[in-house]
Protein backbone atom coordinates (compact mmCIF):
# COMPACT_ATOMS: atom_id res chain seq x y z
CA UNK A 1 0.00 0.00 0.00
CA UNK A 2 1.21 3.49 -0.72
CA UNK A 3 1.45 5.66 2.31
CA UNK A 4 0.19 8.85 0.73
CA UNK A 5 -2.87 10.17 2.46
CA UNK A 6 -3.42 13.30 0.45
CA UNK A 7 -4.43 13.50 -3.20
CA UNK A 8 -3.46 17.02 -4.15
CA UNK A 9 -2.17 20.28 -2.78
CA UNK A 10 -4.53 23.12 -3.55
CA UNK A 11 -2.55 25.94 -1.96
CA UNK A 12 0.96 26.27 -0.68
CA UNK A 13 2.54 29.33 0.81
CA UNK A 14 6.11 28.58 1.92
CA UNK A 15 6.70 28.99 5.67
CA UNK A 16 3.06 29.95 6.13
CA UNK A 17 0.40 27.48 5.14
CA UNK A 18 -0.43 24.42 3.10
CA UNK A 19 -3.82 23.16 1.99
CA UNK A 20 -4.39 19.71 0.53
CA UNK A 21 -7.41 17.62 -0.34
CA UNK A 22 -8.13 13.94 0.01
CA UNK A 23 -11.05 12.22 -1.67
CA UNK A 24 -12.52 9.31 0.21
CA UNK A 25 -13.45 6.35 -1.95
CA UNK A 26 -15.29 3.25 -0.88
CA UNK A 27 -12.73 1.34 -2.97
CA UNK A 28 -10.05 2.03 -0.31
CA UNK A 29 -9.36 -1.21 1.50
CA UNK A 30 -9.61 0.09 5.02
CA UNK A 31 -13.31 0.92 4.63
CA UNK A 32 -14.08 -2.79 4.38
CA UNK A 33 -12.86 -3.33 7.93
CA UNK A 34 -13.55 0.05 9.46
CA UNK A 35 -16.30 -0.92 9.92
CA UNK A 36 -18.10 -3.76 8.12
CA UNK A 37 -21.41 -2.31 6.94
CA UNK A 38 -20.56 1.10 8.41
CA UNK A 39 -17.61 2.62 6.55
CA UNK A 40 -16.04 5.64 8.27
CA UNK A 41 -12.58 7.07 7.68
CA UNK A 42 -10.27 5.94 10.52
CA UNK A 43 -9.36 8.93 12.67
CA UNK A 44 -5.69 7.96 12.62
CA UNK A 45 -5.63 8.12 8.81
CA UNK A 46 -7.33 11.50 8.82
CA UNK A 47 -4.57 12.73 11.11
CA UNK A 48 -1.92 11.09 8.92
CA UNK A 49 -3.14 13.16 5.97
CA UNK A 50 -3.12 16.30 8.07
CA UNK A 51 0.37 15.49 9.34
CA UNK A 52 1.63 14.91 5.80
CA UNK A 53 0.23 18.27 4.76
CA UNK A 54 1.90 20.00 7.71
CA UNK A 55 5.09 17.94 7.50
CA UNK A 56 5.66 19.11 3.95
CA UNK A 57 5.29 22.69 5.11
CA UNK A 58 7.96 22.18 7.79
CA UNK A 59 10.27 20.24 5.45
CA UNK A 60 9.95 22.78 2.67
CA UNK A 61 11.01 25.56 5.04
CA UNK A 62 14.47 23.97 5.16
CA UNK A 63 14.55 22.83 1.57
CA UNK A 64 13.92 19.23 2.66
CA UNK A 65 17.46 19.05 4.00
CA UNK A 66 16.46 18.05 7.54
CA UNK A 67 14.77 14.93 8.79
CA UNK A 68 11.32 15.87 10.03
CA UNK A 69 9.59 13.46 12.36
CA UNK A 70 6.15 13.70 13.83
CA UNK A 71 6.75 14.25 17.52
CA UNK A 72 3.54 15.10 19.26
CA UNK A 73 -0.05 15.72 18.40
CA UNK A 74 -3.28 16.67 20.12
CA UNK A 75 -6.50 16.41 18.19
CA UNK A 76 -10.21 16.90 18.59
CA UNK A 77 -12.81 15.25 16.38
CA UNK A 78 -16.17 16.78 15.61
CA UNK A 79 -17.78 14.36 13.23
CA UNK A 80 -17.12 11.30 11.11
CA UNK A 81 -16.01 11.36 7.48
CA UNK A 82 -17.49 8.85 5.04
CA UNK A 83 -16.79 7.58 1.50
CA UNK A 84 -17.75 10.07 -1.20
CA UNK A 85 -16.63 13.06 0.84
CA UNK A 86 -13.63 15.26 0.17
CA UNK A 87 -11.45 16.21 3.11
CA UNK A 88 -9.69 19.56 3.03
CA UNK A 89 -6.56 19.65 5.15
CA UNK A 90 -5.49 23.14 6.12
CA UNK A 91 -2.26 23.62 8.07
CA UNK A 92 -0.71 26.84 9.32
CA UNK A 93 2.85 27.18 10.54
CA UNK A 94 2.92 28.39 14.13
CA UNK A 95 6.52 27.87 15.24
CA UNK A 96 9.72 26.94 13.50
CA UNK A 97 13.27 26.78 14.74
CA UNK A 98 16.35 24.59 14.47
CA UNK A 99 14.97 21.88 16.70
CA UNK A 100 11.57 21.56 15.07
CA UNK A 101 8.27 23.14 14.23
CA UNK A 102 4.61 23.29 15.08
CA UNK A 103 1.51 23.62 12.90
CA UNK A 104 -2.16 24.11 13.60
CA UNK A 105 -4.43 22.12 11.37
CA UNK A 106 -8.09 21.70 10.53
CA UNK A 107 -9.95 19.11 8.52
CA UNK A 108 -13.13 20.16 6.77
CA UNK A 109 -15.73 18.64 4.49
CA UNK A 110 -17.12 21.69 2.75
CA UNK A 111 -17.82 24.12 5.56
CA UNK A 112 -18.22 21.39 8.14
CA UNK A 113 -15.41 20.94 10.65
CA UNK A 114 -14.36 17.30 10.94
CA UNK A 115 -11.30 17.65 13.17
CA UNK A 116 -8.71 20.08 14.44
CA UNK A 117 -5.23 19.36 15.69
CA UNK A 118 -1.99 20.82 16.84
CA UNK A 119 0.99 18.95 15.49
CA UNK A 120 4.61 19.18 16.55
CA UNK A 121 7.50 18.00 14.42
CA UNK A 122 11.10 17.55 15.47
CA UNK A 123 14.19 17.92 13.34
CA UNK A 124 16.45 14.98 14.00
CA UNK A 125 20.02 14.52 12.90
CA UNK A 126 21.02 11.27 11.19
CA UNK A 127 22.69 10.24 14.45
CA UNK A 128 19.43 10.62 16.36
CA UNK A 129 17.48 8.33 14.05
CA UNK A 130 16.41 4.97 15.45
CA UNK A 131 18.71 2.09 14.45
CA UNK A 132 17.95 0.81 10.97
CA UNK A 133 16.10 3.93 9.89
CA UNK A 134 17.52 5.36 6.67
CA UNK A 135 18.43 9.05 6.52
CA UNK A 136 15.70 9.56 3.94
CA UNK A 137 14.07 12.75 5.24
CA UNK A 138 10.99 10.56 5.73
CA UNK A 139 7.84 11.70 4.05
CA UNK A 140 9.65 13.81 1.53
CA UNK A 141 10.97 11.13 -0.67
CA UNK A 142 8.70 10.10 -3.47
CA UNK A 143 5.10 10.81 -3.95
CA UNK A 144 4.49 13.68 -1.53
CA UNK A 145 7.36 15.67 -2.94
CA UNK A 146 5.96 15.03 -6.40
CA UNK A 147 2.54 16.24 -5.31
CA UNK A 148 4.11 19.38 -3.95
CA UNK A 149 5.98 20.02 -7.19
CA UNK A 150 2.69 19.77 -9.03
CA UNK A 151 1.20 22.27 -6.61
CA UNK A 152 4.15 24.62 -7.03
CA UNK A 153 3.85 24.40 -10.78
CA UNK A 154 0.16 25.19 -10.50
CA UNK A 155 0.69 28.21 -8.28
CA UNK A 156 3.79 29.47 -10.09
CA UNK A 157 6.06 29.24 -7.04
CA UNK A 158 8.22 26.49 -8.53
CA UNK A 159 11.89 27.18 -8.97
CA UNK A 160 13.26 26.47 -12.42
CA UNK A 161 14.83 23.01 -12.54
Amino acid sequence: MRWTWIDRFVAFEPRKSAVAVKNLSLAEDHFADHFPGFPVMPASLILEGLAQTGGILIGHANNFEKNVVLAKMSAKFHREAVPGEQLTYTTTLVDLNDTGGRVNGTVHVGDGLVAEAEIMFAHVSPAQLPPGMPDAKFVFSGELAYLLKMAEAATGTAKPA
Partner: protein
Amino acid sequence: MTHDEIFAKVRVTLVDALNVDDNEVTPTSRLKGDLNAESIDFLDIVFRLERQFGFSIPREDLFPEAIFQGDPKFVAGGKITESGLVELQSKMPYADLTEFRKDPRLDKMEDLFTVDLIVNYLESRVNKK
Protein backbone atom coordinates in the same frame (compact mmCIF):
# COMPACT_ATOMS: atom_id res chain seq x y z
CA MET B 1 6.91 41.06 35.58
CA THR B 2 7.13 39.57 39.06
CA HIS B 3 8.30 36.09 39.94
CA ASP B 4 4.69 35.10 40.69
CA GLU B 5 3.42 36.43 37.38
CA ILE B 6 6.07 34.48 35.53
CA PHE B 7 5.20 31.35 37.50
CA ALA B 8 1.53 31.79 36.57
CA LYS B 9 2.42 31.95 32.88
CA VAL B 10 4.75 28.98 33.13
CA ARG B 11 2.00 27.02 34.84
CA VAL B 12 -0.38 27.69 31.95
CA THR B 13 2.32 26.58 29.51
CA LEU B 14 2.96 23.34 31.36
CA VAL B 15 -0.74 22.57 31.77
CA ASP B 16 -1.15 22.92 27.99
CA ALA B 17 2.02 21.11 26.99
CA LEU B 18 1.88 18.21 29.43
CA ASN B 19 -1.85 17.76 29.94
CA VAL B 20 -1.58 18.11 33.70
CA ASP B 21 -3.87 19.87 36.18
CA ASP B 22 -3.17 23.37 37.51
CA ASN B 23 -2.59 22.15 41.03
CA GLU B 24 -0.01 19.59 39.93
CA VAL B 25 2.33 22.36 38.84
CA THR B 26 4.19 23.73 41.85
CA PRO B 27 7.56 25.52 41.96
CA THR B 28 9.32 22.35 43.04
CA SER B 29 7.62 19.96 40.59
CA ARG B 30 10.13 18.00 38.55
CA LEU B 31 9.27 18.00 34.87
CA LYS B 32 10.05 14.32 34.36
CA GLY B 33 9.60 12.83 37.82
CA ASP B 34 6.38 14.64 38.77
CA LEU B 35 4.82 15.94 35.57
CA ASN B 36 5.78 12.97 33.35
CA ALA B 37 7.40 15.06 30.65
CA GLU B 38 9.14 13.11 27.90
CA SER B 39 12.12 14.41 26.00
CA ILE B 40 9.98 15.64 23.11
CA ASP B 41 7.90 17.68 25.55
CA PHE B 42 10.92 19.86 26.27
CA LEU B 43 10.81 21.09 22.69
CA ASP B 44 7.10 21.73 23.02
CA ILE B 45 7.62 23.64 26.27
CA VAL B 46 10.30 25.84 24.67
CA PHE B 47 8.00 26.65 21.72
CA ARG B 48 5.15 27.59 24.02
CA LEU B 49 7.32 29.70 26.30
CA GLU B 50 8.71 31.58 23.31
CA ARG B 51 5.15 32.44 22.29
CA GLN B 52 4.10 33.37 25.81
CA PHE B 53 7.09 35.60 26.48
CA GLY B 54 7.83 36.88 23.00
CA PHE B 55 11.55 36.13 22.83
CA SER B 56 13.50 33.22 21.51
CA ILE B 57 14.88 30.68 23.93
CA PRO B 58 17.89 28.64 22.80
CA ARG B 59 17.19 25.14 23.96
CA GLU B 60 20.65 24.79 25.56
CA ASP B 61 19.88 27.76 27.79
CA LEU B 62 17.08 25.92 29.49
CA PHE B 63 17.50 22.24 28.76
CA PRO B 64 21.13 21.63 27.86
CA GLU B 65 21.90 18.22 26.41
CA ALA B 66 25.10 16.25 26.81
CA ILE B 67 26.69 18.58 29.35
CA PHE B 68 29.54 16.24 30.22
CA GLN B 69 30.11 14.55 26.86
CA GLY B 70 31.23 11.44 28.72
CA ASP B 71 34.33 13.25 30.00
CA PRO B 72 35.87 11.20 32.88
CA LYS B 73 36.96 14.45 34.50
CA PHE B 74 33.30 15.26 35.09
CA VAL B 75 31.74 11.87 35.69
CA ALA B 76 33.22 8.90 37.51
CA GLY B 77 31.47 5.73 38.61
CA GLY B 78 28.03 7.11 37.75
CA LYS B 79 28.61 10.15 39.94
CA ILE B 80 29.39 13.71 39.03
CA THR B 81 32.78 14.85 40.26
CA GLU B 82 33.61 18.15 41.96
CA SER B 83 34.73 19.70 38.66
CA GLY B 84 31.66 18.19 37.04
CA LEU B 85 29.50 20.07 39.51
CA VAL B 86 31.30 23.31 38.68
CA GLU B 87 30.71 22.64 35.00
CA LEU B 88 27.06 21.81 35.69
CA GLN B 89 26.47 25.00 37.62
CA SER B 90 27.99 27.05 34.81
CA LYS B 91 25.87 25.31 32.15
CA MET B 92 22.74 25.46 34.29
CA PRO B 93 23.12 28.63 36.34
CA TYR B 94 19.41 28.67 37.17
CA ALA B 95 19.32 25.23 38.73
CA ASP B 96 19.37 24.81 42.47
CA LEU B 97 22.07 22.20 43.14
CA THR B 98 21.77 22.20 46.94
CA GLU B 99 19.93 18.88 47.20
CA PHE B 100 21.68 17.34 44.23
CA ARG B 101 25.15 17.92 45.71
CA LYS B 102 24.35 15.52 48.55
CA ASP B 103 24.13 12.58 46.13
CA PRO B 104 25.26 13.76 42.69
CA ARG B 105 24.33 10.65 40.71
CA LEU B 106 24.22 11.10 36.96
CA ASP B 107 20.86 9.34 36.74
CA LYS B 108 19.42 11.84 39.23
CA MET B 109 20.32 14.80 37.06
CA GLU B 110 16.90 14.95 35.44
CA ASP B 111 15.52 15.99 38.84
CA LEU B 112 17.22 19.36 38.33
CA PHE B 113 14.71 20.23 35.63
CA THR B 114 12.05 21.75 37.81
CA VAL B 115 9.36 24.39 37.35
CA ASP B 116 11.52 26.77 39.38
CA LEU B 117 14.40 26.32 36.96
CA ILE B 118 12.20 27.59 34.13
CA VAL B 119 10.81 30.46 36.21
CA ASN B 120 14.26 31.57 37.38
CA TYR B 121 15.63 31.47 33.86
CA LEU B 122 12.72 33.48 32.46
CA GLU B 123 12.94 35.97 35.30
CA SER B 124 16.56 36.70 34.46
CA ARG B 125 15.69 37.12 30.77
CA VAL B 126 12.70 39.36 31.44
CA ASN B 127 14.66 41.59 33.81
CA LYS B 128 17.57 41.93 31.40
CA LYS B 129 15.35 43.59 28.83
